[in-house]
């Protein structure tokens, strides 16, 4: 098993979003891959740079919706036709048009539950502990500062070399992130 690196990574702080995007792009072009940017707002450009591949979320949501819909209709069908057939107003047991509202609601419910649970699961949340919070100034990332963290796991990572690389991008400061 690989030995755990002595620190989690190196974090650079920027006060301008353009600088952060430039820094992230430069780091990406220099070959760094294990890194993440932290911002107080969603930034499309960073998503493209870092997330790379297409997300699985829409597919999961589709499956959740289909499953919910089938479950909703199956519930109505099984109870009204098989388990407890009863004549209501002379309608056929399988009076499918009156099962549509519940089928629809269950479709939406299934899809919405998968969206939220999928979002949390793919993002690895809830996460009670994460090393980036060890940098005291990181609290500003939810206010008006922008951070780029290059992680020690990256094959190109070198404590001195990467620090010099980050400092060339003129951040406000570079700090080491403890585990």
């Amino acid at each position, binding site marked *: 098993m690989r030995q755990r690196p002595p620190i989690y990574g190196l974090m650079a702080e920027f006060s301008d979003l353009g600088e952060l995007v430039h820094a992230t792009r430069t780091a990406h072009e220099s070959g760094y891959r294990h890194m993440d940017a932290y*911002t107080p707002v*969603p930034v499309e450009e960073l*998503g493209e740079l870092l997330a790379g591949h297409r997300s699985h979320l829409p597919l999961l949501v589709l499956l959740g919706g289909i499953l919910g819909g089938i479950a909703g209709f199956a519930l109505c069908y099984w*109870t009204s036709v098989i388990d407890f057939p009863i004549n209501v107003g002379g309608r056929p047991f399988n009076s499918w048009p009156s099962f549509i509202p*519940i089928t629809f609601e269950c479709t*939406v419910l299934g899809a919405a539950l998968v969206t939220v649970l999928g979002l949390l699961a793919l*993002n690895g949340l809830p996460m009670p502990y994460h090393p980036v919070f060890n940098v005291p100034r990181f609290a500003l990332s939810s*206010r008006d500062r922008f951070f780029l963290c290059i992680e020690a796991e990256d094959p190109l990572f070198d404590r001195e070399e990467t620090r010099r690389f980050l400092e060339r991008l003129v951040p406000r400061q570079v700090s080491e992130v403890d585990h």
Partner: protein
Amino acid sequence: MTPEGHALEEPPPRPPLIGPGHTFGSITDKISAIVLERRRTPLAWFIGFGIGFVLFLVLMVSITNLLLRGIGIWGPNTPVAWGFGIINFVWWIGIGHAGTLISAILLLLRQTWRQSINRFAEAMTLFAVAAAGLYPLLHVGRPWLDYWLFPYPNTMGMWPNFRSPLIWDVFAVSTYATVSLLFWYVGLIPDLATLRDRSENRAGRAVYGMLAMGWRGSARHWHRYELASLLLAGLATPLVVSVHTIVSFDFAVGIVPGWHATIFPPYFVAGAIYAGFAMVLTLAIPLRRIYGLQDFITMQHLNYMGRIVLATGLVVAYGYTMEAFMAWYSGNIYEQFMMINRFTGPYRYMYWSLLACNVVAPQALWFQRVRSSTIALMVICMFVNVGMWLERYIIIVVSLSADFMPSSWGLFTGTRWDWSMYVGTIGLFLTLFFLFIRFLPMISIFEMRTMLPEAKVEEESAA
């Protein structure tokens, strides 16, 4: 100048949706201070919460009395077996719809002005649905058996009747409540992280920290977050339309004169949006004043909402016209009598007031001067709030009180317990709403940040 040249001219710039001079920092500080700085809770909050809580206690008394003595303390009796319980259920759930409309449909339509009102409008949705949900749960007569509404394997070997609109309602309303809660919570996560990072006491850090679930603003997370928001908006849009459609099925599926109409679903959905936007304005106007949020909820926002109230009000007026026309055109004497009974029968004062509130009053919104006066807007919205309540009253009570057979006609009036329940649910709503504005950011902080030029990427240094 040629006509073509004229067409190419830039439209006049729209007034900004956010006050001048704001930065990421100032927005964050201003909105989070409302929650985090205890000393700044304004007197108006205590007064509002106090009134709400007293009314909430009225609700508790009403429910207790109802449980002890049964629904005989309410007005409904044959032939008017649906009274305030259903009127208020439909009224509240309709109000809720504006929150979903703002957060979902306006998101899909890329209307950025929604971003300063969506958070509290969604909270309004949740609390309105909570108030609405109480009514059918209590109206069943034996509320301790409410779980019978849900399909579950039981020793009686029975299942709910899935061909009934009432069970559709159970599914529609519970799905709506669940999805609204999820949507609202997902929207809150980044702001909860902001509160966690800015809270100065341990309890605040712990509670907001747990609720934020470790959100750290990672670009990868944001990427999925934006995707999930769009997906949820896409799901909530048909959902909100379906919910009030299904509520209208409660009536439209029955063969009662005045109910059995195909116009009911669209007419109910438009009415719901109409009532909901009126309620959003009713809440927004005092809020921005008390908390000094005129920079975030600008006159332009109120202007846009005024326009939506006007537009949906016109759809509702069209609905009334079509109801009257179809009653005549159907050639059905029961439908025709129902309509004449509305205009001239025992409930005529309510019907004429309804027309005055819902059709006449909002016409003032055609004028820019009215839309830019908070007092005028507030007054019109009050008319709409009352008018939409009267609409449900007329639909339910007039049709049931005099249907097919004159020998079985009868009148309905609400008892004092009907009114105390109604006032009590307003108390429940106000109590929850005031707690919300005290403990959670009432305006979405991160979405307000995205409206600033700071949030646009300008990579000058790359050159």
